[in-house]
């Protein structure tokens, strides 16, 4: 009689432990899902940290600089001429490029290099943007692959975070390739 009763107690103890562990595991999984989703929303709609590599944006952004790119402007379609953007590369969607917006849809952009005698221009088609790196001599950009669709833009670089001595907002285009129209404010 006594052994059956103590067996029941032990079984009940195991069931109790199992329920406790299951409860804690489910709670842990629930919290992970919730915080994972909050993280996704933050990186997708607020902004992300980007480590830049390559010489195409010198002297504004140098190799191994860390910048913060905000996502709101892109979702609200408020990217402007002169902004530095992070975009998906048109030739490899898993690679990102960091360039400056020289022209939005409808703008006139200069397709000839500064050393050419005859200047050629083109107009950026609807739904596209024209990107160029600040380091014109060492940058593959819209001058080689043409305008890219606006939807490939991921975010607008608004702040440089590393190295500490160049912390802060980024400077204007040093290349003077942006053609200002009458509708632009000064």
């Amino acid at each position: 009689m006594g052994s059956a009763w103590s067996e029941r107690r032990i079984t009940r103890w195991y069931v109790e432990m199992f329920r406790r562990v299951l409860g804690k595991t489910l709670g842990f999984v629930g919290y992970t899902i919730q915080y994972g989703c909050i993280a996704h929303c933050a990186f997708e709609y607020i902004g992300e940290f980007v480590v830049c590599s390559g010489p195409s944006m010198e002297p504004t952004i140098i190799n191994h600089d860390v910048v913060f790119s905000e996502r709101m402007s892109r979702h609200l379609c408020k990217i402007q001429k002169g902004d530095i953007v992070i975009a998906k590369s048109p030739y490899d969607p898993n690679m990102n490029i960091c360039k400056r917006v020289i022209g939005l849809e409808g703008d006139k952009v200069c397709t000839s290099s500064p050393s050419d005698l005859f200047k050629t221009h083109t107009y950026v088609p609807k739904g596209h943007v024209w990107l160029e790196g600040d380091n014109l001599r060492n940058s593959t950009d819209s001058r080689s692959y043409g305008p890219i669709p606006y939807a490939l833009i991921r975010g607008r670089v608004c702040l440089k975070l590393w190295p500490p001595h160049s912390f802060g907002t980024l400077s204007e285009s040093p290349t003077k390739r942006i053609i200002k129209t009458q509708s632009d404010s000064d």
Partner: protein
Amino acid sequence: MAQQTTAGRRYLRAFVSGFFVAVPVTVTVLDRFAYVARVEGASMQPFFNPEGGSKSDIVLLNRWSVRNYQVQRGDIVSIVSPKNPQQKIIKRVIGLEGDFIRTLGYKNQYVRVPDGHFWIEGDHHGHSLDSNSFGPVSVGLLHGRASHIIWPPSRWQQIKPSLPPNRGPLDTKEEEG
């Protein structure tokens, strides 16, 4: 009286905490896993909206399967329109990077699809804004793959990749023979 206030405040707290769970989870699911969209227009007839008019098909878009930008020829995909970044269009993939395509009404009669791009067409040629108007599309614009038609119930089906007859990449061997 004091008990009623605490009950109300407890309800408010539960609502707010539930809201902060439901909104991020829903947004994440819609961005990363699955999306539901209504197909409008006649560009994919007779596959979608065969009757036209007010009856539009509703499709389930699988966003998880395109997270690495892997698509097959014959898949029906939704992309962000290269002409209007606020609009999504749904078309069939005809050619992938490296394929040679004989176009219908594009500025060049033969096109080699560049790296990182693909060629899409609507099934209803002539009533479709697709690669025959704006050229090869960058794979970065891919939004999702249509996997099932879920409305109207009479048209419930799984969508399988299939190339329409005579629309596909040119096989170089054929051209030689």
